[in-house]
Structures are given as structure tokens and as C-alpha cells.
């Protein structure tokens, strides 16, 4: 299990590096049927989804109850993922 998580981590780091080195910066807005939404909104949606995944991961590691007050940790995770995605993709 330890090896698996390390492999997963390596994959994340690798993809992050690829994204950064590609310097691929798309327009920081999205056209959704004629309305332009800012990129951070998309990042927020993805960030919320990733937070669910992280919660699942923490539960798998059996530390979900030990990381601290959920009212602090999960908004922090949402903010973290949102900002990180935004910084990586749309900086």
C-alpha cells in the first residue's frame, strides 16, 4: 500500500511538472453556451471534486478523524486545490 501511494504521488508530481514545463496557459475563461465563466470557477468545481477524493483517501488511510476540525480542513482543501489548479493551469 505504501508503494502504491508513492507511485500515485510520483504520477501527480510528474504530471504537474509536465503541465508546468509545457507552459500551456489557456484563456482564463470558458465559454459555456454563450456565457463566459472565469477559470477560477472551473477550478473551484474541480477542487470540490478533488476534496471529495482527498476525503476518501484520508478515510482509506484512517486519519480522516485525526487531521483536525473538518470545518477548517475541508474548506482549506477546497481552497488549496482550487488555487493550485489555477496556479498550474491559468497562472
Amino acid at each position: 500500500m505504501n508503494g502504491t501511494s508513492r507511485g500515485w504521488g510520483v504520477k501527480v508530481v510528474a504530471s504537474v511538472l509536465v503541465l508546468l514545463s509545457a507552459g500551456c496557459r489557456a484563456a482564463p475563461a470558458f465559454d459555456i453556451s454563450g456565457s463566459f465563466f472565469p477559470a477560477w470557477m472551473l477550478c473551484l468545481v474541480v477542487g470540490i471534486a478533488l476534496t471529495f477524493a482527498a476525503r476518501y483517501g484520508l478515510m482509506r488511510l484512517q486519519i480522516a478523524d485525526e487531521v483536525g476540525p473538518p470545518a477548517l480542513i475541508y474548506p482549506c482543501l477546497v481552497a488549496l486545490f482550487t488555487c493550485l489548479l489555477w496556479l498550474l493551469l491559468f497562472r
Partner: protein
Amino acid sequence: MTMSEVERDERRRKGRVVGAGIVALTVLVVLVAVWQTDSHPRTDDATVRVNYITVIPEVSGLLESLPIKDNQYVKKGDLLFSIDCRPYEYVLQQSRANQALLESQIVDDKRRIAAQGSAVDAARAGVQSSHTGVAAAVSNIDAAAATVARAQSAAAAAQAQLTLATANLGRIEPLLAKQYVTYEQVDQARTAVRVAQESYNGAESALLQARAQQGQAVAGKAAAEAGVSQAQAHLGQAIHTVDTVDTLMAQRPVLAAKVLDAELNVERCRVVAPFDGYVTNLNISEGAYAHPGTAMFTLLDMRNWYVIANYRESKLRYMKPGMHADLYLMGHPDRRFSGTIESIGYGVLPEDARVAEGLPEVDRTLNWVHLAARFPVRIRVDNPDPQVFRMGETAVSVIR
């Protein structure tokens, strides 16, 4: 301590580390994001712009030809439209004819003035000859004076002769009674006295005549001087009656300006594109009446593309002209264009600038949160793609 308790402590420690790591990382990442948005201000409140002109005729008339279509690309110097030019050509011909008429009038007048100039020359010659007359009169006077002097000497000589003859007669006459002299001698002496008397009389009358001639010569000089004055008066008269072409010459620039104006109007009948651009808002056809000052259509200046991005006032301090900007068009979000900040707007209409009935109109509000004003930042697109760019497109700009 049981195995499960040890495991639980281990999990708790791990959980705390992960939780603290999440919070610390979040703070860090949020700070980085804030720093990024401050140092690279971005806005999606931006549109693509080009400068444009409304094409306005400067002369009135019916449109004779309109070889362009709406949304057509035209190059600099291409004909946009032409207006029926005949009235302006007639005006041009008229003004040229007026100019030619004036020139021939000037030629005529010059000829007449040349004749008047010859009259002046003749008058000047008259003055000259009258001066000569004066000089002749002066020498006449001198000659008369010499004659008078001669006559005076002759008179004096005759008088001396008479005195001598009279004295001789006086000496010999008493001697006749005593017969010391003969009658003949006395008669001779008497004759000598008479001859001397006559000669003296002749000399006197010659002197009178010479004096009269002198007076005549003086009068002749006065007459010659009067002749000079008269000749000079004639000359002045001749000079003053010489006409000038100044009035006609003064009309030359007026008529030339009229010709230029007419030529300009003829030129203005053909309207050409002042730059490469796209025709827009063209909704008329041949035969439309062109009014000076009324727009016919619009021409977009394709030489320079701009993105006008409205940035919040709080971001303006991070940008200055010359900085690079990444630009995205919402019509082509996959393509990135580069731009350069050309200038930052110095004015927008203030929110509280309304005036009603001569007084500022101020709302009664209780606003604790104020929205930042936005100022238009003009960004010149460095690598525009004419196939993609359209005026008014939505754009996103990020200052780098």
C-alpha cells in the same frame, strides 16, 4: 500499552501532521495566488478595438459610383465613392475664365500706362529745355551788362572830348576880336565842339539802348524761369495722371484662391480610402445624396489592433506603458496573442458627476462597500491575425 493504542497514537500523530500540512500549504498557495494576481493583473472586461473613421463627403451631390461593398477590404488610395462633379467643374472653369480676364485687363492697362509714361518723359524733356532757356537768359544778361559798360566808357570818352573841344573854343573865341586867330580857326573849334557834342549824344543814346537791352535780358530770364515752373508743373501733372495696375494686381490672389478652391472641390468629388481597412455599416447605393458632414459609412483602420481592457483602479499601479500583455480572444480561447500596453486611460465619467437643474445630484446612500472604478488600458496587439480579430470581440488580458 496495547498494540491498538500504539496504532491509534501513531494515526493521531500522522493525522495532525497531515492536517497542519494542509493548512500551512493552503496558506502558502493562497498567498502565492494573491501575489500572482497582484503582480500579473488580469481582466476579462476587455474588448478588441480598432480605430475607425466615419467617411463623410465634403461636397454635396448624387453618388455617381460606389464600387465598394459592405465588409469589403480596401487598400489605401482605393476609390470609395465619387460624387457627380459637373457643377464643381463648371465653377472651376468659371473661375479660371475670371483669372484669364483679369490677366488680359492687366496687359491692357500696362499698355496705357506705358503711353502715360512716355508723356511723363516728354514733360521731363520740357523741364530740361526750359532750364536751358534760363541759362541762355543768364548769359544774355551778362552780355547786356558788358554792352552797358562799353557804352558807359564810350559816353565818358565822348564827354571828355566835348569838354576839351568846348575849352578850346572858349580859349580861341575871345582872340578873334583882336584878330589873333582867324574865323576859320574859330569855326574849326566850333565844329569840333559840335562834333564832340553829337558824338557824346550818340554815346549817351547807345548807353540808354544798352541799359534797355539789359532790362530786356533780365525780363527774359524771369520769363525763362516762369517757363521752368510751368514745365515742372506739367511734369507733376503727367506723373500724377499715370495709372497703376495695383488694384488689378491685388485681385490676382483672390482669383487664384477661387481657382484653388474650385479645384479642391473637384478633387473632393472622388473620395479614396485614407488607409487599409474594412468597410462597415454601408447601407446605401449609387444615387444616394451626399451631404457634407453626414456620414456615409464607417472604415475600420486595420493597421493597428487594440484591446481595451478595463482594469480596476487598484491594479493600475502594477502596470505602466510598454509592459507586455498576454491576450486571449473568447472566440479563439486556444490561441494566445501578445500585446504591449500603449497607454492607460486618464479619465472616466465619475459616478457622482450628475448635475440636475444646475446643482450636483448626490444620492443619499449608506454604502460601506464601494466598487473599484475601472480605467481603460489601451493594449496594442503585437501579432494580430486579421482572420480572427474583429472589433468588439470579448478578450481577456493578463499583464506579464
